[in-house]
């Protein structure tokens, strides 16, 4: 395999640019925020982070979702913690999200718009939650 240069990287990205502009105006992008303090790292948040990056990048409808990390959210007992803010969905904090749990969250929460109840740590009060527009 020939070495991937910065220039090649630029071209790869540019080739996908028009598509990106369309997605962004669509409002389909969202944000995944992963807690990666000492506790998160020790609990496997690095693997969780990678699992999200790879799962989203491989999915045409999700590759423009932002993946970010932050320090400890104060819930060390439930690491790795992941906050998911998708348009049309309440912002939800999930706990104990190991890499193996990522496909379920991607499938249910991101694609089908359904919460993965058994992993929810925190969500807005029920009367603030609006059903997702389809």
């Amino acid at each position, binding site marked *: *395999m020939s*070495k*991937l240069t*910065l*220039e090649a*990287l*630029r071209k*790869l*990205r*540019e080739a*996908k*640019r028009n598509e*990106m502009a369309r997605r962004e105006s669509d409002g389909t*992008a969202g944000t995944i925020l992963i807690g*990666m*303090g*000492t506790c998160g*790292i*020790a609990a496997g948040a*690095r693997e969780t*982070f*990678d699992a*999200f*990056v*790879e799962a*989203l*990048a*491989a999915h045409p409808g*999700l*590759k*423009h*979702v*932002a*993946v*970010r*990390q932050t*320090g*400890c959210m*104060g819930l060390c007992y439930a690491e790795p913690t992941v906050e998911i803010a998708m348009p049309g969905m309440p912002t939800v904090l999930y706990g104990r999200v190991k890499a193996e749990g990522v496909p379920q969250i991607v499938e249910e929460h991101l694609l089908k718009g359904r919460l993965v109840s058994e992993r929810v740590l925190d969500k807005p009060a029920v009367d603030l939650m609006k059903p997702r527009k389809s």
Partner: protein
Amino acid sequence: MHATLCEHLLDLVQNAVEAGASFVQVEVVETEAGDVEVTVSDNGRGMTPEEARRALDPFASDGRKHPARRVGLGLPFFRQMVEQAGGEFDLRSELGVGTSVFGRYRGDHPDAPPMGEWSDFVVQALVLGEGLEMALIREWRGRRVVIRRSELAEALQGLGDAEALALARRYVGEQEREILGKG
């Protein structure tokens, strides 16, 4: 205690970002002779000698982030790892100037941690501090690769989304294989 060097590095980069740095440099040098030398330096707010002493105490925290917390483990873990591996640790910090963390140990010491996934570490560090510059340097037996956040962000038109991060990870992985002679 963290399992790999990359886990320690991520912890230390997080400290630097939280110290308000606009520039963070991580350098990992594996020498021909088998030493591993690690330096994480930043131009953040720095610490007084008293604060630096407390930062090395695992049962101390400045309480800024989590007021009720009584532990701060990032630096103590790194120091413990270095010393367990028979190495030397140094912490230099000056208020208003920045902080530099250094560790050197034998790579073949039984208690030396494995490197871990460098490319994953780089991508995870890059998404931490938006708008700040990072230089993430890996050297193996004299062969060196430098990843600059600004360069990658420019080539990828931002590091905001999953696609950019997956591309960045691939790029860093190839750069790494090249210096390790596995390209």
